């Protein structure tokens, strides 16, 4: 009956975040299974991004616990959580705009080299990471842009770069905050394929609005509503849930299919 604890890479226990007079995240118990792509969905303002900020400690939970691989990481600072292997992305693409594409990835590789405080050494010693950085860029199809200044990349490519950078730190758990938000049709396909590809041997928790992407990628879905978990399950069971349809779409069941088709087509 009880599953072994190590099956879950990340768990939250009664995670709660209250801002002044407003509970953004209310008593959330998440269990993210290792190896899964786990999607967090819900209407605007459901608290999805707040959950992300809590998990990575960009926000301090009001109460509750966060367990990573069975270890309580609630008191850790954001950078320390990242060093444990929980790496997040942001809603707006998180790149270093005025560094080259290669340098972006190299920054992530550099940390484990242990020379990041060495201000007296030449940056040329970082060139030994170029090979690895290029390989990572290749895995997301950006190798020909290695020397481009990042600010000149298209939005979709910036997101791809962001994923390459995240992969560079060899994360155990990737947290992707709306990876396809604001993207054109083509880029959505590109990025969701990429996520599928990098999800091998990894666990991914993602916030995503595009239900088509969710249906294609997610092994498990948690639906948040007003900061609390409404339901959890695979796509078939979640999408069949009348409460989800009502909460997420704000409409009766009949409308959903047309809406969803519209979203897929867009």
């Amino acid at each position, binding site marked *: 009956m009880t599953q072994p604890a190590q099956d879950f890479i990340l768990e939250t226990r009664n995670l709660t975040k209250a801002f002044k007079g407003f509970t953004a995240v209310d008593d959330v118990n998440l269990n993210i299974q290792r190896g899964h792509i786990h999607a967090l969905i819900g209407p605007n303002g459901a608290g999805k991004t707040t959950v992300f900020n809590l998990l990575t400690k960009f926000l301090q939970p009001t109460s509750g616990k966060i367990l990573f691989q069975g270890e309580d990481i609630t008191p850790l600072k954001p*950078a320390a959580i990242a060093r444990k292997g929980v790496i997040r992305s942001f809603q707006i693409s998180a790149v270093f705009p005025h560094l080259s594409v290669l340098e972006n990835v*190299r*920054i992530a590789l550099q940390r484990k*080299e242990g020379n*990041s*405080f*060495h201000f007296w*050494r030449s940056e040329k010693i970082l060139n030994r990471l170029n090979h690895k950085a290029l390989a990572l860029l290749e895995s997301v199809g950006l190798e020909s842009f290695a020397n481009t200044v990042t600010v000149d990349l298209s939005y979709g490519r910036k997101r791809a770069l962001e994923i390459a950078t995240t992969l560079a730190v060899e994360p155990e758990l990737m947290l992707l905050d709306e990876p396809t938000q604001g993207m054109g049709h083509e880029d959505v396909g590109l990025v969701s394929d990429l996520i599928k590809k990098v999800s091998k041997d990894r666990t991914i928790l993602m916030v995503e609005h595009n239900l088509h992407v969710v249906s294609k990628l997610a092994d498990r879905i948690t639906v948040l509503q007003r900061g609390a978990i409404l339901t959890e399950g695979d796509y078939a069971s979640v999408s069949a849930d009348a409460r989800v349809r009502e909460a997420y779409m704000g409409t009766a069941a009949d409308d959903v299919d047309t809406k969803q088709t519209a979203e897929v087509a867009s």
Partner: protein
Amino acid sequence: MNNMKLNLCLLALALLAPTLLYPVFLAKVLCFALFACAFNLLLGFAGLLSFGHAAFLGTGGYVTGYLMIHSGLTPEVAILLGTIAGGLLGAIFGKLAVKREGIYFAMVTLALAQLIFFFYLQAPFTNGEDGLQGVPRGALFGLIDLSDNMVMYYFVLVIFIAGYWLINRTIHSPFGQVLKAIRENEDRATSLGYDVNHYKWLAFVISAALAALAGSTKTLVFELASLTDVHWHMSGEVILMTLVGGVGTIFGPVLGAGFIVTMQNYLSGGEMGNYIHIIMGAVFVICVLSFRSGIVGQLMKFKRNNF
């Protein structure tokens, strides 16, 4: 290696300059250039606007001045100790300031620097308003007498080059890479596992120590350590020098310092002396309004567009 050629030309210029211009004036330019470069390391490459850098310049000056008058140490040791004192003060300031961002960071540094100003105003060893006068230059390593202005100038040039090299190296080091990443996107740097405050702190300490090195050297040049160097005007002036020269460019602050110091020197002698602050203010406004990237930034843009 165009850059190499340019650097050699500049070096030749610096070596020959004192045959044409007054060496004490040139030494002053170099001291302020180093000060501005140290400040620019923080603003241009870590994105941190300190409004309290006068505290480090002044501390270097007072420590070195006091030691030269009272201890009988050789100048290079006195300068080293002045630099270390500035670095230590920077370590404390930095610890408190890096926890805040943007305008709050600037306000914390300003408040701390004001604290230091009033301390030096009241402390008996600084002679308050009079300052430390008649600081002996001593003999370098006990061998080379620095009382000759020409010799002093070349000593300052060596210090400047060493400081400039260190700043350059810091910018182009593994540490400098992380610093730039933090400037570009602090949250992302954090999410990649970097404790950004530690990096900002180290940048602050390096910058403070080099500012103190500039102050220590300046005290020897003028044989004087005074409250002017710890006054908040000085913190503002170094911002002006950096902006006019080109923030975030390596050579910009040197040009900016040269420009401002020269202007001050010529204006304060003539009948325009009373208007000096108005003129400097106007320069600042023009700079911010019409060439925000400063002299060097503008030149680089021109080069990009035309060659």
